[in-house]
């Protein structure tokens, strides 16, 4: 934790509080936190939790933008608290709220079981195109083949893209950007042959066509995954699959 004793600078951190057992609805609570220029918003929240108000709840762990725990709305934008710095709020105050579009479980903690259920639905694992035993060694995959899906495999499941997606907010059945990035990650992997199985989700009424190409999901992604691209590439694929089914008589819409 940054040494905050000697800087004399203070930041007003306004936190959206919600304790389901005592509050009817969320409300803003302000805290004055001493800070230094290298302190993150997360460190500011930790300071509050440790020294000002132990009842404030939030998720965090790695502090280095890889575990994906600390996504929150910071001055209205979905950000990772660990890599958003207090120095970037020169007005001396910052507002922190739970990630948009998710139910608030408590304070800055959102309920995310919907995301896990969706992840489970897309078969997020290699469905081998061709079988291979361990004794046969690794599948060959050139750097170019790796490059096709690597960016989508970088999703840390931080859910910022969901908080950036109004279509998910308006219709929580929508599979959403992050899950589509992961779905595409496997479809685009040269070792995988499971794309048709995953089409059941991508081409469904909860699938890609709920996206209206707002594009903000890709803007807020802290890992340059570009989920909007994953969604929209799959619109083309899903449409192709749809018309192919019509032509080949395999049913089209079920």
């Amino acid at each position: 934790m940054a040494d905050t004793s000697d800087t004399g600078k203070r930041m007003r951190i306004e936190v959206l509080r919600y304790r389901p057992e005592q509050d009817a609805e969320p409300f803003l609570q302000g805290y004055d936190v001493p800070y230094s220029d290298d302190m993150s918003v997360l460190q500011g929240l930790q300071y509050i939790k440790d020294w000002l108000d132990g009842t404030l709840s939030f998720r965090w762990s790695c502090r280095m933008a890889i575990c994906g725990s600390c996504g929150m709305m910071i001055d209205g934008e979905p950000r990772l608290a660990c890599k958003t710095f207090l120095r970037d709020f020169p007005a001396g105050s910052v507002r922190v709220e739970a990630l948009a579009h998710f139910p608030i479980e408590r304070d800055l903690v959102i309920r995310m079981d919907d995301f896990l259920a969706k992840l489970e639905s897309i078969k997020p694992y290699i469905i081998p195109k061709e079988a291979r035993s361990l004794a046969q060694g690794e599948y060959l995959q050139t750097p170019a083949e790796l490059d096709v899906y690597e960016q989508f495999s970088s999703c840390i499941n931080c859910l910022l893209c969901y908080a950036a997606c109004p279509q998910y907010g308006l219709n929580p059945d929508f599979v959403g950007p992050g899950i589509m990035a992961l779905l595409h990650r496997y479809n685009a992997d040269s070792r995988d042959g499971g794309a048709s199985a995953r089409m059941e989700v991508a081409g469904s009424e909860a699938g890609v066509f709920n996206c209206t190409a707002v594009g903000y999901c890709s803007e807020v992604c802290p890992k340059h995954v570009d989920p909007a691209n994953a969604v929209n590439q799959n619109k083309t694929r899903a449409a192709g699959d749809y018309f192919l089914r019509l032509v080949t008589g395999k049913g089209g819409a079920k």
Partner: protein
Amino acid sequence: MKPIPRRSNAPVFWGLFGAGGMLAALFGPVLVFMTGIAVPLGFILPSDAMSWAHMQAFAQHWAGKGLLFVVVALFMWHAMHRILHSLHDLGVHAGAALKIACYGLALLVSIVAAWVLLALGF
């Protein structure tokens, strides 16, 4: 886990939306400029560019008919698809009724355009 919802019919409408959007992006500005500004003002293009004779000939040619139909119909499908989604964005989730209204209007415009173009003869 929730059962996977059924297959979406959206590709049909999305395809029309995309085609119309691309057409509007590539040719929309120049068409508006021609029909709405250049010809009425006689600016760049001759002011009789859209004379009765010219347009009659254009609309009676199969290629001209095709172009006119595609522009009117696809612009409409593009627009109505977007408007439908924007209404949803604004909180108007009317479901099937709204869908029928929006896509129905696009279909109506398409039919009228086709009918008129056919009526204009070859």
